């Protein structure tokens, strides 16, 4: 079906609304001028500036480490939760458990951040890399659980039974049959978790300590002193990186659903 003129206009307007600010940001990241709002010709000097900015690089490295560790931990925990909820016997309160797992998806980040801060203070934990990582793990594991659970629900239960019938104990049946079929969903979940962790400002600022700022915290504090063109360059890099991960995640989930049967997680 061809799009009518009205539909084309609506689509263009919608996309412009979403992407115009980003396009402006990307273009201005190549601005040669020192002033953010004045165009001074093409240049990549702000990218060079960023790669020489020690503090900014430290923050980026911190974000990368938090992302890697928390995404991996969230993938493990989220998968376990998904397996327990789809594969476990129908225990009492199962619906409640499943609802509780999903609630953090819609919980305001301020509340999550504040409650974690209170917990860390009460435990007298030194705030820094590990507290942010733990906070991000708890934020992102429910996203992983959703993705993996929808894949598991689409898998035929008799596949595991067949594996057991052919000599696998339940654990080996999981490793030999279920895991190969859900790993694309797990990979998609991991990438999603990593992206979320990289994006997060609110929870990280509640749970981090002195000297361990993540990239969004660093950018935010820089911007408060005035926007430097260097920030545009960093943001452009982040956008590119996240775009790659999102495409990767959706490819992985497509692969996951083309194997076997139904239920595309993303």
């Amino acid at each position: 079906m061809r799009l009518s003129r009205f539909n084309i206009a609506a689509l263009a307007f919608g996309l412009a609304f979403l992407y115009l600010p980003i396009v402006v940001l990307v273009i201005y990241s190549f601005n040669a001028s020192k002033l953010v709002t004045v165009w001074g010709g093409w240049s990549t000097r702000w990218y060079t500036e960023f790669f020489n900015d020690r503090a900014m690089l430290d923050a980026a490295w911190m974000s990368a480490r938090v992302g890697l560790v928390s995404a991996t931990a969230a993938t493990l925990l989220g998968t376990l939760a998904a397996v327990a909820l789809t594969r476990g016997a129908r225990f009492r309160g199962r619906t409640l458990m499943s609802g509780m797992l999903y609630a953090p998806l819609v919980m305001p980040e301020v509340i999550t951040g504040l409650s974690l801060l209170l917990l860390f203070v009460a435990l007298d934990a030194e705030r820094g890399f590990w507290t942010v990582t733990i906070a991000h793990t708890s934020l992102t594991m429910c996203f992983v659980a959703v993705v993996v659970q929808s894949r598991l629900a689409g898998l035929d239960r008799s596949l595991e039974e067949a594996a057991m019938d052919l000599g696998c104990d339940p654990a080996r049946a999981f490793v030999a049959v279920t895991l190969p079929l859900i790993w694309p969903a797990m990979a998609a979940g991991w990438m999603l978790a990593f992206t979320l962790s990289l994006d997060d400002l609110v929870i990280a600022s509640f749970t981090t300590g002195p000297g361990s700022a993540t990239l969004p915290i660093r950018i935010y504090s820089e911007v408060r002193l005035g926007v430097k063109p260097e920030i545009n360059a960093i943001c452009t890099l982040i956008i590119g990186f996240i775009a790659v991960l999102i495409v990767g995640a959706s490819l992985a989930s497509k692969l996951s659903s083309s194997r076997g049967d139904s239920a595309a997680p993303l």
Partner: protein
Amino acid sequence: MTTATDILPDAIAEAPLIVAAYPMPLLRVDGVSKKFGAFTAVDGLSLDIQAGEFFALLGPSGCGKTTLLRMLAGFETPDAGKILLDGEDIAAVLPHQRPVNMMFQNYALFPHLSVRDNIAFGLKRAALPKPEIAARVAEMVALVKLGGLEKRKPDQLSGGQKQRVALARALARRPQLLLLDEPLAALDKKLREETQAELMELQRRLGTTFVIVTHDQDEAMTMADRIGVMKDGRLEQVATPRQLYEAPASRWIAGFVGDINLIEGEVTLQDAHRLTVAAAGAGMLTVAEPKAPLPSRAICLAIRPEKIRLSRRAPTSAGGLNSIEGVVTEVGYLGGLSVYKVQLDHGATLRVALANTNRLDVDAYGVGQKVVAWFAPDDCVVLPR
């Protein structure tokens, strides 16, 4: 449960019963029950299956046949009773430790593995040496005629090919007992008939004991040595296909297996192995006396449509035959057979099946034709009401 032999005429009773030949069954199910919440799926069921037998569990959906099969495979644990395999109670043994394999209804082939790896899956778990695994896979591939498809993935196979892979995978470990859950349900009619013959051939060649679950009577009748008919978690009758059809043990079985005319009646005279019965809507009939004593005079007569003949006039050699007059009210042409509905002058309706032996159809009876329906006393089964 009445055993089939009690009520059988001698000719059918002499059909060899495998039960007599072996003293110890391969599989003994002893008083097994299984409940799901308030629903009793299997209710104190006992059954013996001999080594080398092809046994079918037949029944309407929800009768507990699949639950019984899953208990044999180990996916469900009985609430009560024993399951003895070769004399050993396996009721609590986990699926992977049983010398039993199952072919799943939807085949449950591993989508990420090739045909070869699917078949080899169980052999690898058994930690067989590699050359042995390769040899067995090759043997299985040849057995189910899958040559050339070893590298394909399940989604590149047709329904019939998937069915063969599932069979090969289940047989590869050389189980003592192979369980088949509706193995042919997903195939179309023609392929199903071919596959039935192949399965029987395979079973005879390997000598493996097969227990098949099916809701398809024709499938059970064609393939099985013996059939256990289940209803509400219990076995109604265990018998050879022929006994089941010709000597149903109860009114329910008679109605469930094949097509049948059921007429209620009252025994008025019992003499020289013949009963005279006042049948409701069919007049006075003479039938053979059953071997088992009847609990009361109120009985039910069961007669298969193809055991009744039709003619325009009463048969001349009517000695001992029952003949009842009526009118044809409906004719169903099925190709090989025609099924006639005959309204008897006494009130009852009979279904009569006649083979269409004459291509030009000169002897067919049309609607409204006055006919005489007749049958021999031995062709009628007497059942308690």
